[in-house]
């Protein structure tokens, strides 16, 4: 799973606060994602403490057995109750998707760690000590606004966005303008997958976004986060409002109550704020880490079935070759880190050549160089590890921390260290 939120509503941080306040127990406690959902079993549900909740008229409250509703759902009586986690029970058509997104959002804000199975499926979340530290802050307080803003500004995809917005010559952007820089690109390398019955199918690896929709949704969600951090301002936002997580969430609620439930699509760039952040130095303490380098295998296209067992061959390919794709990304990121530390540049052709020494780092020998050059360097930039290319040489444009490899298998980390010991990969910078 790539821990990039890809539903616009998860950019509304008032909801984050409601879910967190209603479900946090103690730092170190583990809970299942489904335990986040609204349920009559709990004394307090997100809708009871959410800053955006609205009171139901008495006759409706009596019918429904609850006193508040979420203004972002299409109807007040909607049994999903909360737009972020939905409610428990058979009536929830979305099953685990909403809580999955909620867990990703809480992870981005340092409130929980994600405990995943080997196939990438989220098993549990573990509350962090940081979460306990902010529990008693009040929604709207300057301390909480600062905490949330700091987390946004150090989140990998937002760092990449800041970098791109800084380069932009325009003062206005639309969501569609950013699809290019916010897409996880697939490497499309030819592979053979073998099903349980031994049938071989030739496919291309699809380790990028599962669909175009996913890019559309994550772009809006990331821009929503950027608005909370005062990097962009939605067109139509009141001029006398400042932009903080608190203010922006309030504005979204006001719009929803005015029946404007669609999310903004056009934004003005806060150039002075971005200029100040860039000149102070970008912070990548919250980059995307190893276990989230490729999205989960969720292709649903009926045309991509194995002719003998009807398994989805694209998903199979992702499971069989996903680790190689992740290892290659980590190799590139670690190379960027070393280049930053030694003030050198990376020779991409040499890095590609060296990576072919171990099959854990390539999928197709023939296309390894082109894949790193045209695909993977953009993917790692999206994850926050921004870089610039000149001829064959790649230069890191950010201080890459060592926390990106935290969940990588130790043999992969060790092998990367060995491969990067080749001094020919790193060359002196020209400036």
């Amino acid at each position, binding site marked *: 799973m790539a821990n990039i939120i890809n539903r616009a509503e998860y950019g509304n941080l008032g909801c984050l606060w409601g879910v967190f306040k209603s479900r946090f127990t103690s730092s170190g406690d583990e809970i299942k994602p489904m335990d986040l959902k609204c349920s009559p079993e709990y004394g307090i549900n997100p809708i009871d403490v959410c800053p955006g909740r609205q009171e139901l*008229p*008495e*006759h*409706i409250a009596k*019918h*429904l057995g609850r006193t508040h509703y979420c203004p972002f*759902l*299409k*109807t*007040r*009586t*909607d*049994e*999903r109750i909360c737009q972020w986690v939905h409610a428990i029970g*058979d*009536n929830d*058509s*979305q*099953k685990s998707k909403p809580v999955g997104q909620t867990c990703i959002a809480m992870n981005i804000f340092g409130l929980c760690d994600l405990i995943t199975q080997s196939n990438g499926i989220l098993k549990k979340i573990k509350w962090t000590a940081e979460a306990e530290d902010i529990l008693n802050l009040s929604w709207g307080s300057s301390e909480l606004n600062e905490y949330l803003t700091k987390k946004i500004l150090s989140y990998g995809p937002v760092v990449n966005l800041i970098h791109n917005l800084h380069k932009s010559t325009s003062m206005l952007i639309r969501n569609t303008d950013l699809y290019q820089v916010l897409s996880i690109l697939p490497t499309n390398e030819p592979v053979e997958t073998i099903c349980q019955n031994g049938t071989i199918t030739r496919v291309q690896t699809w380790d990028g976004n599962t*669909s175009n929709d996913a890019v559309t949704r994550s772009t809006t969600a990331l821009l929503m986060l950027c608005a909370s951090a005062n990097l962009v301002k939605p067109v139509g936002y009141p001029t006398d409002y400042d932009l903080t997580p608190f203010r922006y969430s309030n504005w979204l609620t006001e719009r929803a109550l005015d*029946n404007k439930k669609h999310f903004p699509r056009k934004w003005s760039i806060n150039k002075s704020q971005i200029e100040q952040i860039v000149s102070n130095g970008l912070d990548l303490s919250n980059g995307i880490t190893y276990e989230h380098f490729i999205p989960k295998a969720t292709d*649903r*296209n*009926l*045309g991509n079935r194995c002719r003998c067992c009807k398994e989805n061959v694209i998903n199979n390919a992702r499971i069989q070759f996903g680790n190689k794709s992740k290892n290659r990304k980590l190799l590139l990121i670690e190379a960027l880190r070393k280049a930053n530390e030694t003030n050198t540049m990376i020779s991409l052709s040499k890095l590609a050549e060296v990576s072919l020494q171990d099959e854990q780092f390539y999928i197709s020998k023939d296309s390894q160089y082109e894949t790193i050059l045209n695909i993977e360097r953009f993917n790692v930039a999206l994850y926050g590890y921004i870089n610039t290319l000149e001829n064959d040489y790649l230069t890191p444009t950010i201080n890459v921390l060592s926390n990106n490899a935290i969940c990588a298998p130790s043999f992969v980390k060790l092998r990367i260290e060995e491969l990067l010991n080749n001094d020919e990969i790193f060359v002196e910078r020209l400036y």
Partner: protein
Amino acid sequence: MKTFCENSIRMPSGATLDHFLKAVSNETTLNREFIEICTPNSHALKGANIGDIDNKLCFGCLNCIDVEEINYLTVQGSPSQFKTNISLQNTCNKLFQGKYTRFGPAADKLANHSMQKETEISNPLGTLIIWNLSRDPTRTFFCSSPSGELSINTSNHLDSREGHLDITICSPQDKIVCVLEGKASVAAMLRDISRDQWDRYKSQLEKESKENNYTLIFSYLVGGNEIGLYPENSDAPHSTRRLELYKYIEEKNLRFISIEALRSLRAYQLSISKEWNWETWFPKLFADNRFIGLLAGGIVTKENDVYSLRKAPWCK
């Protein structure tokens, strides 16, 4: 006065017409969902009583009205606390006569409201009117917009996305299911031509309803002003989109019902014929090869390649 309906059924994600028809065969296990009758979000109804209605916001859909309350209506079709001298029957005598007509003096209110949003206004509005037009509303179930649409698996190699059925309403005891593809207005219907929903959905819906021994009614439900839906040779005022629309109807052999026609049927049911129900009349209309559409002024038929407006068969 009605404020809630409990016959909206929440089906699991990806449930199709087939799943729904099988589920309604056992009413006790259905996942029912409360929905507010005055849509959306009790738009004009601030409490549970007639006195709580904001007449400026009410657009007279007649969904909250019970039969015994028909003498408590304003000229605009809004419920009133006081007995009025408005005769709904006089208005209804002009409906479905094969002549262009509009309901009441404030017909534009419904048209303007219903054309605003397809999923949040016109679809649930249409669903609730049909539900009210049932032989037995307590045993008529539906899945509809804004959040309960059924899926229809028409995905293929070119388009991996499944479709959704805007309105599905069925009467298990009569074994009839009505599936409506909602469009907020004539303009919205013409805008979506390229989506080719009619051809993609029809054969699959026929298959699933036949397998469950249900009679299928499949049609477009069009909100907004219905003038554009009247045929060229009727006495309706001129509409710039009419020729374009009828070309599309001809090409795809479409069927349509307007929201205004549904509201008119509700008024007709309340004031003239309490026995009128869609389970009796819709199958008769749709089984007739000449039938094309249902409007407040009558039914549109096609005979000898000519589209005409005729008197509805339930009118004497």
